[in-house]
Each structure stands twice: as structure tokens, then as C-alpha cells.
């Protein structure tokens, strides 16, 4: 019985380790030194772009993904068809 359990039961420590790594990567991003880094980035990018073209505040998305080695910042801005004309 004991032997059976030993063979059938998966080790739990690797699961703990993996869960922690994923969780902490997110928490560090959220509570790190710049708690609202993304918010600030979003506002400044918006301000810079709206100098030159009319854009909708809600159609800008800023995403940051942190990996162990490299983090990527993705900025997605939807520009309306006639935005350039209006601003000019």
C-alpha cells in the first residue's frame, strides 16, 4: 500500500515551486517600485500622440509582460480613419 502510494503520487514540491514562480512574477510586476508604471506610460503616450492626431482614450492599450530574462512592452493604439486630417 505504502509502496503503491509512493509510486502513484506525484511529487508536490515541483508544483509548489512552479506556482510560486508564476505568482511572484505577477506580484512583483504589480507591487514593484512603480506600482502604476503602466498607467503613467499610457497617459504620457496618449499625450504625445494626441498632439499630432485625434485618438480615442479607450482605444489605447498598454501591456507589459515580464519574463525571467526579457520583458516586453506592447502598445496598441487604434487610429481612426481621418485622425490625421482633424489634428492638422
Amino acid at each position, binding site marked *: 500500500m505504502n509502496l503503491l502510494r509512493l509510486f502513484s503520487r506525484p*511529487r508536490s*514540491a*515541483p508544483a*509548489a*515551486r512552479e506556482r510560486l*514562480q508564476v505568482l*511572484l512574477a505577477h506580484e512583483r510586476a504589480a*507591487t514593484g*517600485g512603480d506600482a502604476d508604471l503602466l498607467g503613467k506610460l499610457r497617459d504620457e503616450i496618449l499625450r504625445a500622440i494626441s498632439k499630432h492626431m485625434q485618438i480615442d482614450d479607450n482605444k489605447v492599450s498598454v501591456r507589459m509582460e515580464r519574463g525571467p530574462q526579457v520583458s516586453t512592452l506592447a502598445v496598441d493604439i487604434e487610429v481612426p480613419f481621418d485622425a490625421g486630417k482633424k489634428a492638422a
Partner: protein
Amino acid sequence: MGKVIVVTSGKGGVGKTTSSAALGAALAQGGDKVVVVDFDVGLRNLDLVMGAERRVVYDLVNVIQGEAKLTQALIRDKRVETLYLLPASQTRDKDNLTSEGVAAVIGALKANFDWVICDSPAGIERGATLAMRHADIAIVVTNPEVSSVRDSDRIIGLLDSKTLKAENGERMEKHLLLTRYDPLRAERGDMLKVDDVLEILSIPLLGIIPESMDVLRASNIGSPVTLADQGSAPALAYFDAVRRLKGEQLPVTVPGEKRGFFGKFFGRKAA
């Protein structure tokens, strides 16, 4: 000037008070003048673990409120001459700990002791941030268990942002003390291994305290484990931790772990 150490953790019940008492006693046994300060206002347990619960007259809050002098509140240990305790108040409102008051007390203790060990309350509330504020060195006590590791990560973040050292742009010296470690269960794959915890938290390892009956026995009789049972595995681990704290380069071996021939000579490297 003495060094101020904060013994902290996010989660409660991981062994902060036990470790504060054990490390304090071990340092004092080496001849250093040590005071252990209980910052857990409202709960207070350090006096009990150190066997001084019936000798408390004045406490930290009395000193901060100006109702007692620091020398009146300090309790000298009966076993080790150079070991002192500054107890926490049990009945008072914990808001009585003012930032200026704590600064004044720590300043006075630093001038008179070689080591000031601050036993922090659990959590990330005001009491915990006050306890760590003036620290030169932080000891983060962690169990090899998911919730403890997660909360320790949070505390490490606070140590890097909410302390005087951090605010002055200096680097806070941080150490990991892994307590309640069971090498057999880690070997079986049912407990996070030392290397897992180190990799996740990435602060240098001060010591590994094995899970042991001796720790409970020592607190039952009101004695730091380094005094009660000096030859026991946890006591030896605390003595080693103290040597590292004093700057000695000492390889960290997992107590009780079966090591190969080479493992005996090349232990885990302490940072």
C-alpha cells in the same frame, strides 16, 4: 555603534520570535552585548520564549510614552550576562508606537549595545514597517512552504522601499533564514528544497534550521534553544548563522541531510 537587525517575515508563525531569541542568545554567549526588542505590541511573546515573562515591569510603550526610563524597562537575562530584553506591551493600543519614539529608543540602544535585534510582528502593517525602519541588516525568516515564501517576497520588497537605508539610497543587507526544514521530505519531493526557495527569493542564505522537537522543548521551558540545548541540531544551526552574521565565510550544510563524500567538503556556499 551597534548593529540593528530586524527579524521579519510576512507570514506569522514561521519562527521569528524563536529565531530572535536563539540568535540573540548565541551572540551574547560569544561575549557581545545584545538586546532583543519585542515589537509585537498587543501580542508580545518574546518575554515568554526567553523565560522572562514574570519579570516584566515596564515595556517598550512605557519607554516611548516617557513613563519609564530605558534602563528601567530593560530586563537582563539570568543565564547570560550580556543578554537583555526589551519587552512589548500586551495591553496597550499599538498606535502608541510612534515613529519618533521608536527612532529615539533604537538610537539609545545602538549606542549601548553591540547588537540590537528587533523581533518584528507578522504582516506588512505599521508595526512591521516600524520594526524594520532603522535596521542595518534584515533576517527574513521563511518556512519551505508556498504561503510563507510568497509573503517573504512581499517583505523583501518592503525592505527595499520602506526602510531608512532604502530611502537614503543605500542597499539593505538581507539574509534568508530557512526554518522548519525537513531534509527527508525535501529529498522525497514533498517540500520545497533550499535551492528552490533561494532561487525564488534570491537573497543570500544565512542558515537552515531543521524541523526539530528541541525547538518546542526549549520554548516550553522558556529558554532560547541556543541556551537550552547547545548541542542540538537547531542550536548548532543558529550558532553557525551567528558566525555568518559576523562575517565568517562558512559553507551552509543542510542539517541531517545525507551528503556524499565530496558534499561533506564542498557544502552549499553561503553568500
